[in-house]
């Protein structure tokens, strides 16, 4: 060991290890072997299989963990199901007390949890001690509050039931908290599977739950690998799946749960831009990069892994970054003065190494600090790539390691283009001293979180989650609660007749049987032949003939022919989506303006009320035709009213900072209308979607599409810009899959059959578009609660959280 005089001269850092003894003692206290914690009891795995969990810094085994089987998952779900009614019935205040106790437990055992986390995951003790575990406690405190407030603030909402939760290895306990706290606060019970690399803190947490007197079965932890996860995803008695992990696995889960009726939230991968404008405080930018990509060894889904630097400062920034990288310290995660710990596992290290090699082969300049990285254990040095083209693999692929790529841009517009040139949309960071620039750029970024002059800031009160293929749903804040509740009215829903897709098929079959639409004579009261009216498709503000050149017959209530509509096909959908994508000015415009247009639609609908009443009577035979028209006018008013009132929030994150939670429209939404209430359902779905700034491609009711085609006459007189509302008639069974599979469609709402819903969910996995389906269940379109309001507005938007620290 160096003597004091030697150190006095060198002024080196020495070792500063955090003792592992208490954490190892906890493991030893369990005999080094762990079962599942189900229903408040340690349960041996049914199939008796175990696997080892290792310390990535040493490669040595820490403990033996149970491999969960289908039988174990069954048991856990049964425990959750048994506990759920009493847990929900206990009331918000009782649940708040329990969550408060859990927060206290986390704080009381914070060091044990931190050390155990660093041992199992390899993250530096500074991070587990100062970031992960305090955020865990904060999450339970914050959600204790939501439990307390649920009965008043979410009075119309009910818990979902049993929630299956699958979390990753990068923030084991923090991801657990993000999953469990909102779920149990809202009266659900959970079956949680930690990642197989990092199960220990979840098991310790489950033990703390038991010690804190949480009722058995509210929190169940089943350990295991992907097979255990599959069993949870496939379990028929689970009401919702919440998953954090790779986009690849998220996509598999989306497909696997399609049509199951399970609610789903996915928090997936990212390649988040880190944008540096020339007027930024560059020294602070450098520390921002440290926090962005050298936090948690870069194994962060929202890591700022793509630096976009304005050309004028790129060279200086590179020099400053390299100098800073020289002072980073990689090594023993339990050393208190280490910045970068161990990579989770050899397989991940290999992946990082391979991608870095590929980056070099593709011509980028790789730079690593001069000091040498530990060779024992899983370590990788901080790495900076410059001269990177957007097309380079390392600029597109999520590396999930301490590797950052740097590109340059010339103008703010180009910065946004580069930033958004990715399939992902998890987070972004913007560095500038100009508030004008920051608040101009933030809304233009396709990302669920935008950090201004900061990065990787998290808090329980601010929602976190993705745009695009980074997933959907939010964790944290009021917006995160939505993932764990459902409208109370939806509890007693039955399978209804509102089966647009089936109806469409029926029309299709009719058409096939009849060969041509004009075969069948139309019964007309008048002697004079009627003037033929041709209902067309409505695309890009124009009435257009269907690409197919075919028409479909629409029957009236008496079985006669009411008219014909164009038989749209995939090309018409393609054209409609293109038109909708072009109408981006609608989204950028003001809410006031959108409200004016929607009010004008209502006004013109009223002016043509008789026409619509007549049509409704003929088509549906509905005596309530007059009521439906009146309701439709009212619904349009309601949507117009909401246009400038669906406000965001300013979240109370515990920093000197405003966190703006802004609801933003999804973009282009495909809407498949139900069979019932053809006019009212059309208006009830389309109007809120467009009022909040979306552009839509509507597939009208299969039975009564003429209402929708009549409607474009209203649109044409109401100042609706071209492309905002596009109507493609035809067989919903043929058109829906095209919409659901279209990668430039941002969301699909489907109010048709259960099979159609399953298909929409399955096909949406292509670009992970948001879906809202009714699984063939009944919705009363005349009922205000079921057919208007928050549920529609929430599905029409996604929340972006913009963090703006301030202070001169």
């Amino acid at each position, binding site marked *: 060991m160096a003597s004091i*005089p030697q150190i*006095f001269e060198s002024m*080196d850092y020495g070792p500063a290890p955090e003792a592992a003894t208490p954490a190892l003692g906890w493991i030893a206290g369990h005999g080094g072997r762990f079962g599942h914690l189900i229903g408040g009891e340690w349960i041996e795995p049914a199939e008796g299989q175990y696997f080892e969990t290792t310390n990535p810094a040493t490669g040595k085994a820490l403990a033996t963990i149970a491999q969960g089987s289908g039988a174990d998952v069954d048991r856990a779900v049964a425990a959750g199901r048994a506990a759920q009614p009493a847990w929900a019935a206990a009331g918000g205040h009782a649940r708040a007390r329990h969550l408060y106790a859990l927060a206290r437990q986390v704080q009381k055992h914070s060091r044990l949890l931190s050390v155990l986390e660093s041992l199992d995951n390899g993250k530096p003790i500074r991070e587990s001690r*100062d970031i992960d575990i305090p955020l865990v406690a904060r999450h339970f405190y914050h959600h204790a509050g939501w439990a307390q407030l649920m009965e008043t603030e979410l009075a119309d909402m009910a818990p979902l039931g049993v929630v299956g939760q699958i979390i990753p290895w990068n923030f084991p306990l923090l991801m657990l908290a993000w999953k469990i706290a909102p779920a149990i606060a809202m009266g659900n019970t959970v079956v949680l599977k930690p990642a197989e690399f990092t199960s220990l803190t979840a098991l310790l947490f489950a033990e703390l739950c038991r010690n804190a007197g949480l009722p058995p079965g509210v929190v169940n932890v089943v350990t295991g690998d992907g097979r255990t996860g599959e069993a949870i995803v496939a379990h028929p008695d689970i009401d919702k799946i919440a998953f954090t992990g790779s986009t690849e696995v998220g996509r598999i889960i989306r497909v696997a749960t399609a049509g199951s009726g399970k609610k789903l939230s996915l928090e997936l991968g990212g390649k988040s831009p880190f944008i540096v404008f020339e007027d930024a*405080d560059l020294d602070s930018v450098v520390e921002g990069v440290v926090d962005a990509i050298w936090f948690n060894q870069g194994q962060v889904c929202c890591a700022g892994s793509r630096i976009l630097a304005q050309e004028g400062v790129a060279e200086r920034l590179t020099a400053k970054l390299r100098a800073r990288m*020289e002072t980073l310290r990689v090594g023993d995660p339990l050393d*208190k*003065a280490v910045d970068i710990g161990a990579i989770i596992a050899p397989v991940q290290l290999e992946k990082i190494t391979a991608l870095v090699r590929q980056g070099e082969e593709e011509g980028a300049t790789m730079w690593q600090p001069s000091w040498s990285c530990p060779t024992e254990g899983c370590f990788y040095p901080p790495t900076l790539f410059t001269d990177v083209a957007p097309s380079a693999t390392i600029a597109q692929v999520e590396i999930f390691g301490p590797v950052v790529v740097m590109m340059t841009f010339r103008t703010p517009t180009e910065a946004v283009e580069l930033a958004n040139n990715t399939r992902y949309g998890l987070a972004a960071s913007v560095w500038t*001293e100009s508030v004008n620039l920051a608040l101009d750029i933030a809304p233009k970024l396709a990302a669920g979180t935008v950090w201004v002059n900061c990065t990787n800031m998290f808090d329980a009160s601010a929602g976190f989650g993705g745009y695009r293929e980074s997933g959907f749903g939010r964790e944290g804040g009021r917006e995160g609660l939505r993932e764990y509740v459902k409208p109370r009215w939806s509890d007693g829903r039955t399978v209804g007749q509102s089966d647009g897709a089936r109806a469409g098929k029926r029309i299709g079959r009719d058409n096939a049987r009849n060969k041509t639409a004009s075969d069948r004579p139309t019964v007309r009261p008048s002697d004079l032949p009627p003037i033929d009216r041709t209902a067309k498709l409505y695309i890009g503000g124009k009435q257009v003939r269907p690409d197919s050149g075919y028409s479909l017959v629409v029957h009236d209530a008496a079985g006669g022919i009411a008219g014909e509509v164009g038989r749209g096909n995939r090309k018409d959908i393609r054209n409609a989506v293109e038109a909708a994508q072009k109408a981006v000015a609608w989204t950028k415009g003001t809410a006031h303006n959108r409200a004016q247009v929607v009010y004008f639609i209502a006004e013109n609908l009223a002016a043509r009320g008789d026409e619509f009443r007549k049509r409704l009577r003929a088509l549906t035979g509905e005596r309530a035709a007059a009521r439906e028209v009146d309701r439709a006018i009212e619904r349009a008013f309601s949507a117009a009213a909401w246009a400038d009132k669906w406000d965001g929030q300013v979240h109370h994150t515990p920093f*000197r900072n405003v966190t703006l939670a802004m609801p933003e429209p999804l973009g282009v939404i495909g809407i498949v209308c139900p069979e019932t209430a053809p006019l009212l359902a059309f208006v009830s779905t389309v109007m809120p979607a467009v009022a909040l700034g979306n552009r839509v491609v509507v597939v009208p009711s299969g039975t009564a599409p003429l209402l929708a085609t009549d409607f474009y006459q209203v649109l044409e007189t109401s100042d609706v810009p071209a492309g905002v509302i596009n109507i493609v008639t035809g067989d919903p069974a043929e058109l829906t899959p095209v919409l659901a599979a279209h990668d430039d469609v941002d969301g699909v709402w489907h109010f048709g059959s259960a099979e159609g819903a399953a298909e929409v969910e399955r096909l949406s996995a292509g670009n992970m578009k948001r879906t809202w389906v009714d699984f063939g269940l009944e919705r009363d379109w005349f009922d205000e609660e079921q057919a208007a309001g928050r549920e529609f507005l929430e599905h029409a938007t996604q929340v972006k959280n913009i963090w703006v620290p301030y202070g001169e």
Partner: protein
Amino acid sequence: MAQISTQAAASGGGHLDPRFIPRNPGIPLELDWVREVRVNRSAVERRAATLATRRTVKKEWQAAWLLRAVTLMDLTTLSGDDTPGRVRRLCAKARQPVQPDLLEQLGASSLRIRTAAVCVYHAMVPTAVEALAGSGIPVAAVSTGFPAGLSPFAQRLAEIGASVEAGAEEIDIVITRAHVLTGDWQALYDEVRAFREACGDAHIKTILATGELGTLRNVARASLVCMMAGADFIKTSTGKESVNAVLPVGLVMVRAIRDYLERTGHLVGFKPAGGIRTAKDSLVWLSLMKEELGPRWLRPELFRFGASALLTDIERQLEYFATGRYSADYRHPMG
């Protein structure tokens, strides 16, 4: 661009002694540079807050670092009731800040542990010079109408001359805060330039009184202008402002020093003063210097603590390390 430490070494010229630091000659005032300074307060505060949590030294390393901290101290008394007796006591402490038996227990008797300087008002300079004779410890005098710096300019200049004449080798001047607050960078530059000339061979430390400058951006700009005007050291505070040496301010100032070095090749020292009272505080400041500027700024030529109470706490911590028992103030000789 090479890393900082390499650059610093290069600008040291042909001198082999790493402690040889050529004085900062200053450069003409560059207003564009001053105006383009950007400081993001929130980001600076985040970095400052994690400095203490990202780095720590334990056991032998802590003891060695604390001994180093002692040698970086401008042991200071700046009170209205200072007397020659009080100053002589302080100088005795400066010569022997850590008791020999304790150094022996630490295995550090070979080290020549003494403070970097003794810092007093002008009136006490002769006493201090006499008391420190033969020790090699320089006397620093606060000057130019310390602490407010609002006495007539000619008197301020004369005060520097008098202190240098009386044997002060280091002059801690205060700047006119109004020049910063009104953005009159030329006036600030001229003032410091004049002070530097008045100092002659004595080193000049420019006290920014950052607690009175309003914003971190002002701190950064004032730091730059003082360095352009030839400051050997930039110093945070007089110790008399309501907010003195705090880490965010220190971070901004050392970044300005780095910026100045990168662009001009001149080395400038840093002195946080006021409010640094615990051994732990001193270690965080040393980490800050090591991280942001490199090991050259862990030597008295380029780094000083302005402190009075700090020494006692360091002595207590050293004794705890040596004996394993927590120590008490009264066990250590007072200054």
